[in-house]
Protein backbone atom coordinates (compact mmCIF):
# COMPACT_ATOMS: atom_id res chain seq x y z
CA UNK A 1 0.00 0.00 0.00
CA UNK A 2 2.79 2.35 1.04
CA UNK A 3 6.33 1.52 0.01
CA UNK A 4 9.29 3.64 1.02
CA UNK A 5 12.60 2.87 -0.70
CA UNK A 6 16.00 4.07 0.54
CA UNK A 7 14.75 7.44 1.67
CA UNK A 8 17.39 10.04 2.52
CA UNK A 9 16.84 13.52 3.83
CA UNK A 10 19.59 16.04 4.48
CA UNK A 11 18.59 19.48 5.71
CA UNK A 12 20.30 22.57 4.34
CA UNK A 13 22.21 22.86 7.60
CA UNK A 14 23.88 19.55 6.69
CA UNK A 15 22.01 17.54 9.33
CA UNK A 16 21.07 14.07 8.16
CA UNK A 17 17.49 13.41 9.26
CA UNK A 18 16.97 10.16 7.37
CA UNK A 19 19.65 7.78 6.12
CA UNK A 20 18.27 5.15 3.79
CA UNK A 21 14.91 4.32 5.35
CA UNK A 22 12.98 1.53 3.65
CA UNK A 23 9.56 0.56 4.94
CA UNK A 24 6.45 -1.16 3.65
CA UNK A 25 3.00 -0.66 5.14
CA UNK A 26 0.22 -2.99 4.01
CA UNK A 27 -3.30 -1.81 3.48
CA UNK A 28 -5.19 -1.70 6.80
CA UNK A 29 -1.99 -2.02 8.81
CA UNK A 30 -1.24 0.32 11.72
CA UNK A 31 2.37 0.82 12.72
CA UNK A 32 3.87 2.72 15.61
CA UNK A 33 7.00 4.73 14.89
CA UNK A 34 9.10 5.22 18.01
CA UNK A 35 12.50 6.72 18.62
CA UNK A 36 14.24 9.51 20.52
CA UNK A 37 13.57 13.16 19.72
CA UNK A 38 15.44 14.13 16.57
CA UNK A 39 15.53 10.57 15.23
CA UNK A 40 13.65 11.69 12.11
CA UNK A 41 10.13 10.44 12.91
CA UNK A 42 8.41 13.70 11.97
CA UNK A 43 10.59 14.12 8.91
CA UNK A 44 9.74 10.60 7.74
CA UNK A 45 5.97 11.03 7.84
CA UNK A 46 6.22 14.51 6.33
CA UNK A 47 8.18 13.10 3.42
CA UNK A 48 5.29 10.75 2.64
CA UNK A 49 2.92 13.61 1.79
CA UNK A 50 5.80 15.81 0.64
CA UNK A 51 5.37 18.54 3.23
CA UNK A 52 9.11 17.91 3.46
CA UNK A 53 11.07 17.23 0.25
CA UNK A 54 13.18 14.09 0.53
CA UNK A 55 16.75 14.41 -0.76
CA UNK A 56 16.70 11.01 -2.46
CA UNK A 57 14.76 7.76 -2.44
CA UNK A 58 11.30 6.85 -3.66
CA UNK A 59 7.89 6.61 -2.09
CA UNK A 60 5.00 4.66 -3.65
CA UNK A 61 1.40 5.04 -2.58
CA UNK A 62 -0.26 2.09 -4.27
CA UNK A 63 1.00 2.41 -7.85
CA UNK A 64 1.64 6.15 -7.66
CA UNK A 65 5.19 7.33 -7.14
CA UNK A 66 4.57 10.24 -4.76
CA UNK A 67 8.17 11.44 -4.97
CA UNK A 68 7.88 12.22 -8.69
CA UNK A 69 4.67 14.26 -8.51
CA UNK A 70 4.19 18.01 -8.75
CA UNK A 71 1.37 20.52 -8.96
CA UNK A 72 -2.16 19.16 -9.15
CA UNK A 73 -1.01 15.53 -9.34
CA UNK A 74 0.71 16.01 -5.98
CA UNK A 75 -2.42 17.61 -4.54
CA UNK A 76 -4.47 14.66 -5.77
CA UNK A 77 -2.08 12.25 -4.06
CA UNK A 78 -2.29 14.29 -0.85
CA UNK A 79 -6.06 13.80 -0.78
CA UNK A 80 -5.42 10.10 -0.23
CA UNK A 81 -3.10 10.76 2.73
CA UNK A 82 -4.56 12.44 5.81
CA UNK A 83 -2.52 13.85 8.65
CA UNK A 84 -3.21 14.28 12.36
CA UNK A 85 -0.98 16.58 14.41
CA UNK A 86 0.33 16.78 17.95
CA UNK A 87 -0.85 20.32 18.60
CA UNK A 88 -3.96 19.55 16.55
CA UNK A 89 -3.12 22.25 13.95
CA UNK A 90 -6.74 23.25 13.75
CA UNK A 91 -7.69 26.54 12.18
CA UNK A 92 -8.24 28.23 15.51
CA UNK A 93 -10.58 31.00 14.45
CA UNK A 94 -12.84 28.88 12.27
CA UNK A 95 -15.75 26.78 13.48
CA UNK A 96 -15.55 23.06 14.16
CA UNK A 97 -17.61 22.43 11.01
CA UNK A 98 -15.31 24.54 8.83
CA UNK A 99 -12.34 22.66 10.25
CA UNK A 100 -13.87 19.29 9.39
CA UNK A 101 -14.92 20.50 5.94
CA UNK A 102 -11.38 21.74 5.30
CA UNK A 103 -10.55 18.06 4.91
CA UNK A 104 -12.55 18.25 1.67
CA UNK A 105 -10.57 21.15 0.20
CA UNK A 106 -8.68 18.88 -2.15
CA UNK A 107 -11.99 17.90 -3.77
CA UNK A 108 -13.55 21.38 -3.77
CA UNK A 109 -13.08 24.28 -6.16
CA UNK A 110 -11.68 27.55 -4.83
CA UNK A 111 -14.86 29.64 -5.06
CA UNK A 112 -17.04 26.93 -3.49
CA UNK A 113 -14.64 26.76 -0.55
CA UNK A 114 -14.36 30.57 -0.40
CA UNK A 115 -18.13 30.89 0.04
CA UNK A 116 -18.16 27.74 2.23
CA UNK A 117 -20.58 26.11 -0.21
CA UNK A 118 -19.49 22.52 0.15
CA UNK A 119 -21.45 19.74 -1.60
CA UNK A 120 -24.37 18.35 0.39
CA UNK A 121 -22.72 14.91 0.58
CA UNK A 122 -19.63 16.43 2.18
CA UNK A 123 -21.72 18.22 4.78
CA UNK A 124 -23.71 15.10 5.56
CA UNK A 125 -20.49 13.13 5.93
CA UNK A 126 -19.01 15.82 8.16
CA UNK A 127 -22.05 15.65 10.46
CA UNK A 128 -21.75 11.86 10.58
CA UNK A 129 -18.04 12.12 11.49
CA UNK A 130 -18.72 14.69 14.19
CA UNK A 131 -21.30 12.35 15.61
CA UNK A 132 -18.79 9.49 15.48
CA UNK A 133 -16.24 11.51 17.48
CA UNK A 134 -18.98 12.78 19.77
CA UNK A 135 -18.82 16.49 18.98
CA UNK A 136 -22.31 17.04 17.54
CA UNK A 137 -23.23 19.81 19.96
CA UNK A 138 -20.04 21.80 19.18
CA UNK A 139 -20.54 22.14 15.40
CA UNK A 140 -20.66 25.94 15.37
CA UNK A 141 -18.15 26.58 18.15
CA UNK A 142 -14.81 28.05 17.27
CA UNK A 143 -11.98 25.53 17.44
CA UNK A 144 -10.11 27.60 20.02
CA UNK A 145 -13.04 27.26 22.44
CA UNK A 146 -12.61 23.49 22.81
CA UNK A 147 -10.55 21.43 25.25
CA UNK A 148 -7.47 19.48 24.19
CA UNK A 149 -9.24 16.15 23.78
CA UNK A 150 -12.10 17.73 21.84
CA UNK A 151 -9.65 19.54 19.58
CA UNK A 152 -7.81 16.33 18.82
CA UNK A 153 -11.13 14.72 17.88
CA UNK A 154 -11.84 17.61 15.49
CA UNK A 155 -8.42 16.91 13.98
CA UNK A 156 -9.36 13.26 13.56
CA UNK A 157 -12.70 14.14 11.95
CA UNK A 158 -10.92 16.50 9.55
CA UNK A 159 -8.51 13.75 8.57
CA UNK A 160 -11.30 11.23 8.00
CA UNK A 161 -13.32 13.76 5.98
CA UNK A 162 -10.60 13.35 3.38
CA UNK A 163 -11.65 9.71 2.94
CA UNK A 164 -7.97 8.77 3.00
CA UNK A 165 -6.30 5.43 2.41
CA UNK A 166 -3.42 6.28 4.71
CA UNK A 167 -3.27 8.23 7.97
CA UNK A 168 -0.08 9.94 9.11
CA UNK A 169 -0.39 10.61 12.81
CA UNK A 170 2.23 12.81 14.46
CA UNK A 171 2.39 12.48 18.25
CA UNK A 172 -1.41 12.33 18.70
CA UNK A 173 -1.26 12.13 22.48
CA UNK A 174 1.76 14.20 23.47
CA UNK A 175 -0.38 17.17 24.52
CA UNK A 176 -3.09 15.14 26.25
CA UNK A 177 -3.55 13.73 29.73
CA UNK A 178 -3.14 9.95 30.21
CA UNK A 179 -6.83 9.12 30.18
CA UNK A 180 -7.61 11.25 27.12
CA UNK A 181 -4.50 9.80 25.44
CA UNK A 182 -5.85 6.27 25.78
CA UNK A 183 -9.28 7.33 24.58
CA UNK A 184 -7.78 9.03 21.53
CA UNK A 185 -5.58 6.01 20.73
CA UNK A 186 -8.55 3.67 21.11
CA UNK A 187 -10.66 5.87 18.84
CA UNK A 188 -7.89 6.03 16.24
CA UNK A 189 -7.35 2.28 16.12
CA UNK A 190 -11.11 1.64 15.95
CA UNK A 191 -11.53 4.11 13.11
CA UNK A 192 -8.65 2.56 11.19
CA UNK A 193 -10.20 -0.86 11.59
CA UNK A 194 -13.66 0.37 10.55
CA UNK A 195 -12.37 2.14 7.45
CA UNK A 196 -9.63 -0.43 6.73
CA UNK A 197 -7.08 2.41 6.79
CA UNK A 198 -3.35 2.09 6.98
CA UNK A 199 -1.68 4.35 9.53
CA UNK A 200 1.76 5.41 10.71
CA UNK A 201 1.66 6.71 14.27
CA UNK A 202 4.62 8.68 15.63
CA UNK A 203 4.56 8.18 19.33
CA UNK A 204 6.82 8.90 22.29
CA UNK A 205 4.98 6.84 24.88
CA UNK A 206 6.31 3.30 24.46
CA UNK A 207 3.79 1.76 26.86
CA UNK A 208 0.89 3.35 25.01
CA UNK A 209 2.34 2.25 21.68
CA UNK A 210 2.62 -1.35 22.88
CA UNK A 211 -0.93 -1.27 24.18
CA UNK A 212 -2.55 -0.19 20.90
CA UNK A 213 -0.16 -0.80 18.03
CA UNK A 214 0.67 -4.35 16.91
CA UNK A 215 3.72 -3.47 14.82
CA UNK A 216 6.47 -1.15 16.01
CA UNK A 217 9.23 0.46 13.98
CA UNK A 218 12.14 1.93 15.93
CA UNK A 219 14.06 4.81 14.41
CA UNK A 220 17.41 5.99 15.65
CA UNK A 221 19.47 8.77 14.07
CA UNK A 222 17.60 8.43 10.78
CA UNK A 223 17.87 4.66 10.49
CA UNK A 224 15.44 1.86 11.23
CA UNK A 225 16.90 -0.24 14.05
CA UNK A 226 13.83 -2.30 14.91
CA UNK A 227 10.84 -3.52 12.93
CA UNK A 228 8.70 -6.15 14.58
CA UNK A 229 5.83 -6.99 16.90
CA UNK A 230 5.07 -4.77 19.88
CA UNK A 231 5.84 -7.52 22.40
CA UNK A 232 9.32 -7.88 20.94
CA UNK A 233 10.39 -4.59 22.55
CA UNK A 234 12.80 -6.09 25.05
CA UNK A 235 15.11 -3.94 27.20
CA UNK A 236 17.91 -4.73 24.72
CA UNK A 237 15.80 -3.46 21.81
CA UNK A 238 14.85 -0.30 23.70
CA UNK A 239 18.54 0.28 24.39
CA UNK A 240 19.34 0.05 20.66
CA UNK A 241 16.56 2.55 19.93
CA UNK A 242 16.95 5.04 22.75
CA UNK A 243 20.39 4.33 24.23
CA UNK A 244 21.52 3.06 27.60
CA UNK A 245 18.95 3.19 30.42
CA UNK A 246 17.67 0.80 33.09
CA UNK A 247 14.52 -0.33 31.25
CA UNK A 248 13.52 -2.90 33.87
CA UNK A 249 12.85 -0.22 36.48
CA UNK A 250 9.76 1.19 34.78
CA UNK A 251 7.09 0.12 37.25
CA UNK A 252 3.46 0.91 36.62
CA UNK A 253 3.56 3.58 39.31
CA UNK A 254 6.48 5.41 37.70
CA UNK A 255 4.72 5.46 34.37
CA UNK A 256 1.65 6.96 35.93
CA UNK A 257 3.76 9.74 37.43
CA UNK A 258 5.54 10.35 34.15
CA UNK A 259 2.20 10.64 32.46
CA UNK A 260 1.03 13.21 34.95
CA UNK A 261 4.23 15.20 34.44
CA UNK A 262 3.52 15.17 30.74
CA UNK A 263 0.04 16.51 31.31
CA UNK A 264 0.30 19.30 28.79
CA UNK A 265 0.41 23.00 29.46
CA UNK A 266 -1.61 23.18 26.25
CA UNK A 267 -4.68 21.86 27.91
CA UNK A 268 -6.65 24.75 29.38
CA UNK A 269 -8.88 23.79 32.25
CA UNK A 270 -12.57 24.37 31.84
CA UNK A 271 -12.32 27.38 34.12
CA UNK A 272 -9.71 29.05 31.95
CA UNK A 273 -11.71 28.37 28.82
CA UNK A 274 -14.79 29.83 30.46
CA UNK A 275 -12.85 32.94 31.42
CA UNK A 276 -11.61 33.47 27.87
CA UNK A 277 -14.97 32.94 26.24
CA UNK A 278 -17.61 34.25 28.57
Amino acid at each position, binding site marked *: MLRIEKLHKYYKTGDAALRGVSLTVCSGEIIGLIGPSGAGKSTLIRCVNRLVEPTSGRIFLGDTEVTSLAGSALRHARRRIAMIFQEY*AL*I*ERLTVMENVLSGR*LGYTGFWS*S*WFRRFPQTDIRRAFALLQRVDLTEHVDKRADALSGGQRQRVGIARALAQEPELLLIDEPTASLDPKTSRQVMRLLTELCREGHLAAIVNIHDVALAQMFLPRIVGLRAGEIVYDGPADGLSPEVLTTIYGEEDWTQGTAKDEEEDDFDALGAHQPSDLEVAAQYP
Partner: protein
Amino acid sequence: MTTATQSVSPPQSLAHGWHRPRLIEPTWARWAVAFGIVAYLTLAFASVDVNWARVSDGLARAGRLFEGFLTPNFTARWSDIQQGMIESLTMTVTATVAGVALAIPFGLGAARNLAPWWLYGICRAVIAVSRALHEIIVAIFFVAMFGFGPFAGFLTLSLSTIGFLSKLLADDIEEIDPAQVEAIRATGAGFCQVIDFAVASQVIPRLVGLTAYKVDINFRESSVIGIVGAGGIGATLNTALDRYEFESAAAILLIIITIVMACEYASGAIRKRFA
Protein backbone atom coordinates in the same frame (compact mmCIF):
# COMPACT_ATOMS: atom_id res chain seq x y z
CA MET B 1 18.52 14.50 42.98
CA THR B 2 22.12 13.67 42.29
CA THR B 3 24.90 14.31 44.73
CA ALA B 4 26.52 16.76 42.35
CA THR B 5 23.99 19.51 43.11
CA GLN B 6 24.52 19.21 46.83
CA SER B 7 28.30 19.45 46.77
CA VAL B 8 28.49 22.59 44.63
CA SER B 9 30.50 25.31 46.38
CA PRO B 10 29.04 28.84 46.47
CA PRO B 11 29.87 30.67 43.25
CA GLN B 12 32.72 33.12 43.39
CA SER B 13 30.65 36.22 42.76
CA LEU B 14 29.05 35.84 46.21
CA ALA B 15 32.23 37.19 47.74
CA HIS B 16 32.20 40.31 45.53
CA GLY B 17 28.63 41.52 45.50
CA TRP B 18 26.87 42.18 42.23
CA HIS B 19 25.94 45.01 39.91
CA ARG B 20 23.86 44.94 36.73
CA PRO B 21 26.02 44.50 33.59
CA ARG B 22 26.57 48.06 32.35
CA LEU B 23 25.76 49.33 28.87
CA ILE B 24 29.26 50.79 28.53
CA GLU B 25 31.76 48.98 30.69
CA PRO B 26 34.85 51.31 31.06
CA THR B 27 34.11 54.07 33.59
CA TRP B 28 35.99 56.80 31.68
CA ALA B 29 33.97 56.03 28.51
CA ARG B 30 30.71 56.24 30.45
CA TRP B 31 31.62 59.68 31.77
CA ALA B 32 32.84 60.84 28.36
CA VAL B 33 29.55 59.91 26.71
CA ALA B 34 27.51 61.59 29.47
CA PHE B 35 29.61 64.78 29.24
CA GLY B 36 29.34 64.80 25.45
CA ILE B 37 25.55 64.60 25.57
CA VAL B 38 25.26 67.41 28.12
CA ALA B 39 27.66 69.63 26.18
CA TYR B 40 25.80 69.07 22.91
CA LEU B 41 22.39 69.80 24.46
CA THR B 42 23.69 73.00 26.11
CA LEU B 43 25.08 74.30 22.81
CA ALA B 44 21.97 73.20 20.89
CA PHE B 45 19.56 74.99 23.22
CA ALA B 46 21.79 78.08 23.24
CA SER B 47 21.60 78.23 19.44
CA VAL B 48 17.78 78.33 19.37
CA ASP B 49 17.07 82.00 18.73
CA VAL B 50 14.00 83.15 20.65
CA ASN B 51 12.52 86.44 19.56
CA TRP B 52 10.45 87.52 22.56
CA ALA B 53 8.70 90.33 20.67
CA ARG B 54 7.31 87.80 18.20
CA VAL B 55 6.35 85.44 21.01
CA SER B 56 4.21 88.15 22.62
CA ASP B 57 2.58 88.97 19.25
CA GLY B 58 1.92 85.27 18.74
CA LEU B 59 0.37 84.92 22.17
CA ALA B 60 -2.01 87.77 21.35
CA ARG B 61 -3.04 85.98 18.12
CA ALA B 62 -3.38 82.71 20.07
CA GLY B 63 -5.80 84.58 22.36
CA ARG B 64 -7.94 85.51 19.35
CA LEU B 65 -7.74 81.93 18.08
CA PHE B 66 -9.00 80.61 21.37
CA GLU B 67 -11.72 83.23 21.45
CA GLY B 68 -12.74 81.97 18.04
CA PHE B 69 -12.86 78.47 19.46
CA LEU B 70 -15.25 79.59 22.13
CA THR B 71 -17.48 81.16 19.46
CA PRO B 72 -17.20 78.78 16.48
CA ASN B 73 -19.13 79.99 13.48
CA PHE B 74 -20.58 77.15 11.45
CA THR B 75 -22.88 79.28 9.30
CA ALA B 76 -20.73 81.99 7.69
CA ARG B 77 -18.83 79.59 5.42
CA TRP B 78 -21.15 76.60 5.69
CA SER B 79 -21.31 75.79 1.96
CA ASP B 80 -17.47 75.83 1.73
CA ILE B 81 -17.19 73.70 4.85
CA GLN B 82 -19.79 71.28 3.58
CA GLN B 83 -18.11 70.90 0.21
CA GLY B 84 -14.66 70.48 1.78
CA MET B 85 -15.98 67.91 4.21
CA ILE B 86 -17.69 65.87 1.48
CA GLU B 87 -14.47 65.98 -0.56
CA SER B 88 -12.39 64.88 2.40
CA LEU B 89 -14.69 62.02 3.33
CA THR B 90 -14.89 60.88 -0.30
CA MET B 91 -11.11 60.98 -0.55
CA THR B 92 -10.74 59.05 2.69
CA VAL B 93 -13.16 56.28 1.80
CA THR B 94 -12.15 55.79 -1.84
CA ALA B 95 -8.42 55.97 -1.05
CA THR B 96 -8.73 53.49 1.81
CA VAL B 97 -10.72 51.01 -0.30
CA ALA B 98 -8.35 51.29 -3.27
CA GLY B 99 -5.33 51.20 -0.96
CA VAL B 100 -6.50 48.09 0.90
CA ALA B 101 -7.40 46.32 -2.35
CA LEU B 102 -3.84 46.86 -3.56
CA ALA B 103 -2.17 46.36 -0.19
CA ILE B 104 -3.45 42.78 0.16
CA PRO B 105 -1.64 41.38 -2.91
CA PHE B 106 1.49 43.37 -2.09
CA GLY B 107 1.31 42.18 1.52
CA LEU B 108 1.01 38.54 0.43
CA GLY B 109 3.94 39.00 -1.95
CA ALA B 110 6.06 40.62 0.75
CA ALA B 111 5.66 37.77 3.24
CA ARG B 112 8.80 35.65 3.18
CA ASN B 113 6.97 32.47 4.19
CA LEU B 114 4.61 32.64 1.18
CA ALA B 115 6.44 34.33 -1.67
CA PRO B 116 9.52 33.26 -3.66
CA TRP B 117 12.55 35.50 -3.09
CA TRP B 118 12.22 37.51 -6.31
CA LEU B 119 8.57 38.42 -5.66
CA TYR B 120 9.45 39.19 -2.06
CA GLY B 121 12.17 41.58 -3.25
CA ILE B 122 9.86 43.39 -5.67
CA CYS B 123 7.03 43.79 -3.15
CA ARG B 124 9.30 44.93 -0.34
CA ALA B 125 10.84 47.49 -2.74
CA VAL B 126 7.39 48.86 -3.69
CA ILE B 127 6.50 49.11 -0.01
CA ALA B 128 9.76 50.84 0.85
CA VAL B 129 9.26 53.41 -1.93
CA SER B 130 5.68 54.18 -0.94
CA ARG B 131 6.74 54.60 2.67
CA ALA B 132 9.85 56.65 1.97
CA LEU B 133 8.17 60.00 1.32
CA HIS B 134 5.82 61.85 3.62
CA GLU B 135 2.23 62.31 2.42
CA ILE B 136 2.69 66.06 2.06
CA ILE B 137 5.63 65.66 -0.30
CA VAL B 138 3.78 63.01 -2.30
CA ALA B 139 0.73 65.31 -2.42
CA ILE B 140 2.87 68.17 -3.77
CA PHE B 141 4.09 65.86 -6.55
CA PHE B 142 0.59 64.69 -7.44
CA VAL B 143 -0.79 68.24 -7.37
CA ALA B 144 2.02 69.26 -9.73
CA MET B 145 1.20 66.31 -12.00
CA PHE B 146 -2.60 66.27 -11.98
CA GLY B 147 -3.52 69.76 -10.81
CA PHE B 148 -5.38 71.00 -7.74
CA GLY B 149 -8.26 69.00 -6.33
CA PRO B 150 -9.24 65.81 -4.59
CA PHE B 151 -7.89 63.46 -7.29
CA ALA B 152 -4.33 64.28 -6.22
CA GLY B 153 -5.39 63.69 -2.63
CA PHE B 154 -6.97 60.35 -3.52
CA LEU B 155 -3.73 59.17 -5.17
CA THR B 156 -1.63 60.37 -2.24
CA LEU B 157 -3.70 58.59 0.36
CA SER B 158 -3.98 55.39 -1.71
CA LEU B 159 -0.21 55.23 -2.01
CA SER B 160 0.31 55.79 1.70
CA THR B 161 -2.32 53.13 2.50
CA ILE B 162 -0.44 50.61 0.36
CA GLY B 163 2.81 51.38 2.14
CA PHE B 164 1.30 51.25 5.61
CA LEU B 165 -1.01 48.26 5.29
CA SER B 166 1.03 45.95 3.10
CA LYS B 167 4.08 46.28 5.34
CA LEU B 168 2.17 45.54 8.54
CA LEU B 169 0.12 42.80 6.84
CA ALA B 170 3.28 41.13 5.51
CA ASP B 171 4.93 41.27 8.93
CA ASP B 172 1.82 39.73 10.45
CA ILE B 173 1.69 36.95 7.85
CA GLU B 174 5.31 36.12 8.56
CA GLU B 175 4.36 35.45 12.16
CA ILE B 176 1.37 33.14 11.63
CA ASP B 177 1.30 29.62 13.07
CA PRO B 178 2.91 27.45 10.34
CA ALA B 179 1.23 24.28 11.64
CA GLN B 180 -2.16 25.47 10.38
CA VAL B 181 -0.68 26.09 6.93
CA GLU B 182 0.88 22.63 6.98
CA ALA B 183 -2.43 21.04 7.98
CA ILE B 184 -4.35 22.66 5.11
CA ARG B 185 -1.61 21.86 2.57
CA ALA B 186 -1.74 18.24 3.74
CA THR B 187 -5.41 17.98 2.74
CA GLY B 188 -4.48 18.54 -0.90
CA ALA B 189 -5.79 22.12 -0.92
CA GLY B 190 -4.60 24.52 -3.62
CA PHE B 191 -2.54 27.65 -2.91
CA CYS B 192 -5.55 30.01 -2.84
CA GLN B 193 -7.41 27.70 -0.47
CA VAL B 194 -4.40 27.61 1.84
CA ILE B 195 -4.40 31.43 1.84
CA ASP B 196 -8.15 31.50 2.56
CA PHE B 197 -8.29 28.91 5.35
CA ALA B 198 -4.88 28.92 6.98
CA VAL B 199 -3.55 32.46 6.40
CA ALA B 200 -6.57 34.77 6.12
CA SER B 201 -8.25 33.27 9.16
CA GLN B 202 -5.18 34.12 11.20
CA VAL B 203 -4.51 37.65 9.94
CA ILE B 204 -8.00 39.05 9.35
CA PRO B 205 -8.56 40.46 12.85
CA ARG B 206 -5.39 42.49 12.56
CA LEU B 207 -6.12 43.49 8.97
CA VAL B 208 -9.55 44.78 9.99
CA GLY B 209 -8.10 46.66 12.96
CA LEU B 210 -5.37 48.24 10.84
CA THR B 211 -7.86 49.22 8.13
CA ALA B 212 -10.10 50.95 10.67
CA TYR B 213 -7.05 52.73 12.05
CA LYS B 214 -5.97 53.75 8.56
CA VAL B 215 -9.41 55.25 7.82
CA ASP B 216 -8.84 57.46 10.82
CA ILE B 217 -5.31 58.40 9.72
CA ASN B 218 -6.41 59.01 6.14
CA PHE B 219 -9.14 61.38 7.26
CA ARG B 220 -6.66 63.40 9.30
CA GLU B 221 -4.13 63.33 6.44
CA SER B 222 -6.83 64.46 4.02
CA SER B 223 -7.25 67.62 6.07
CA VAL B 224 -3.50 68.26 5.98
CA ILE B 225 -2.79 67.61 2.31
CA GLY B 226 -5.59 70.03 1.44
CA ILE B 227 -3.21 72.76 2.54
CA VAL B 228 -0.85 71.97 -0.36
CA GLY B 229 -3.75 71.97 -2.81
CA ALA B 230 -4.94 68.38 -2.81
CA GLY B 231 -8.55 69.31 -2.07
CA GLY B 232 -10.75 68.54 0.87
CA ILE B 233 -11.42 70.25 4.16
CA GLY B 234 -7.74 71.23 4.50
CA ALA B 235 -8.12 73.66 1.63
CA THR B 236 -11.14 75.22 3.33
CA LEU B 237 -9.28 75.42 6.65
CA ASN B 238 -6.28 77.02 4.98
CA THR B 239 -8.47 79.67 3.36
CA ALA B 240 -10.18 80.43 6.65
CA LEU B 241 -6.86 80.88 8.46
CA ASP B 242 -5.43 83.01 5.63
CA ARG B 243 -8.40 85.35 5.98
CA TYR B 244 -8.08 85.43 9.79
CA GLU B 245 -11.61 83.95 10.03
CA PHE B 246 -10.81 82.15 13.24
CA GLU B 247 -14.47 81.44 14.05
CA SER B 248 -14.89 79.46 10.81
CA ALA B 249 -11.51 77.78 11.33
CA ALA B 250 -12.63 76.77 14.81
CA ALA B 251 -15.84 75.33 13.40
CA ILE B 252 -13.81 73.25 10.91
CA LEU B 253 -11.45 71.99 13.62
CA LEU B 254 -14.37 71.01 15.84
CA ILE B 255 -15.94 69.02 13.00
CA ILE B 256 -12.61 67.26 12.33
CA ILE B 257 -12.26 66.37 16.01
CA THR B 258 -15.82 65.03 16.12
CA ILE B 259 -15.30 62.86 13.05
CA VAL B 260 -11.97 61.50 14.30
CA MET B 261 -13.60 60.59 17.61
CA ALA B 262 -16.50 58.92 15.82
CA CYS B 263 -13.97 56.90 13.76
CA GLU B 264 -12.22 55.91 16.98
CA TYR B 265 -15.39 54.54 18.59
CA ALA B 266 -16.49 52.84 15.37
CA SER B 267 -13.14 51.13 14.90
CA GLY B 268 -13.19 49.92 18.50
CA ALA B 269 -16.62 48.39 18.00
CA ILE B 270 -15.61 46.80 14.68
CA ARG B 271 -12.44 45.31 16.16
CA LYS B 272 -14.40 43.75 18.98
CA ARG B 273 -16.66 41.99 16.46
CA PHE B 274 -13.67 40.52 14.61
CA ALA B 275 -11.53 39.47 17.57
